């Protein structure tokens, strides 16, 4: 009986948590200053395609740090575009997922807005 009550209590907690979860999703819309709100198309593309692995500000996570490093690593922008287009090591290919123009925009974003 006690166990059943505990389980009932946890179920109530779960329902409340789910409601709070849904509320936070709607209420926590990104404010000013976020990468995704920076305004450029490259920023939005970066947030939805690259930030997962490279971090919201390109600081690196699963993937290597981009901020402040990527332009030095790829002096020729065409080399960086080729990596984004074709993928390399653990990084997926974005050919087909992003247009050439979008790849150009996000590459430009990583080389400028994230710090060169």
């Amino acid at each position: 009986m006690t166990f059943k009550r505990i389980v009932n209590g946890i179920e109530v907690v779960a329902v409340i948590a789910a409601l709070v979860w849904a509320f936070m999703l709607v209420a926590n819309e990104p404010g000013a200053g976020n990468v995704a709100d920076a305004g450029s198309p490259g920023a939005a593309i970066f947030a939805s395609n690259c930030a997962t692995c490279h971090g919201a500000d390109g600081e690196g996570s699963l993937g290597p740090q981009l901020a402040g490093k990527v332009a030095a690593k790829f002096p020729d922008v065409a080399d960086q575009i080729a990596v984004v287009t074709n993928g390399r090591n653990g990084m997926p290919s974005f050919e087909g997922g992003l247009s050439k123009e979008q790849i150009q925009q996000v590459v430009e974003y990583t080389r400028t807005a994230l710090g060169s």
Partner: protein
Amino acid sequence: MTAPAVGHRDSVTVKMLGVFLAGAAVSILLGVYGDTHTPTGEKPYNLFFTDTIQLKVWFATAAVALALLQVLLAMRLYGKLKWPRTAPSWLGDAHRLCGTLAFLITLPVAYQCLWALGFQSTPTRVLVHSIVGCLFYGAFVAKVLAVRFHGLPGWSLPVIGGVVFTALVVIFLTSSVWFFTDGPAGLPIF
């Protein structure tokens, strides 16, 4: 066929339709939110893990472990497993507890997915993960409703529960397993 029998069948049909529509609505709402919401790319929490991705990977793994235990308990409840020979009275509550805890554990994972990453369509692994992630919560809502509604066909709960479990496993395969095996970070770390 008598009138009450027809009425009962209609009632069951309405309940099943309600369960399906509620689940579908939740899945679609999550998908629409993930697609229209501007992803922040941020990492809102990592608790004692080195990074949010580690938290997500291990929480998802724990959720699958609990779900697996829940399936085993369900199989004992339905008599598909014969061990233990005498089913303890608390088996049903333990089944509920496992499912509830598994669901709770998925919430911070899904929150970061939806809020920070949104619905993504590339590469294929991420597309499958996004779709099945939305399906999972819809199926979960359908299962909760199916448990509460009495008089549904006997096959409904196992089928809906199977969909919930399968969805969770696919989510796990396209995230945690990918992280453990093919992810750039390599070996599982905390």
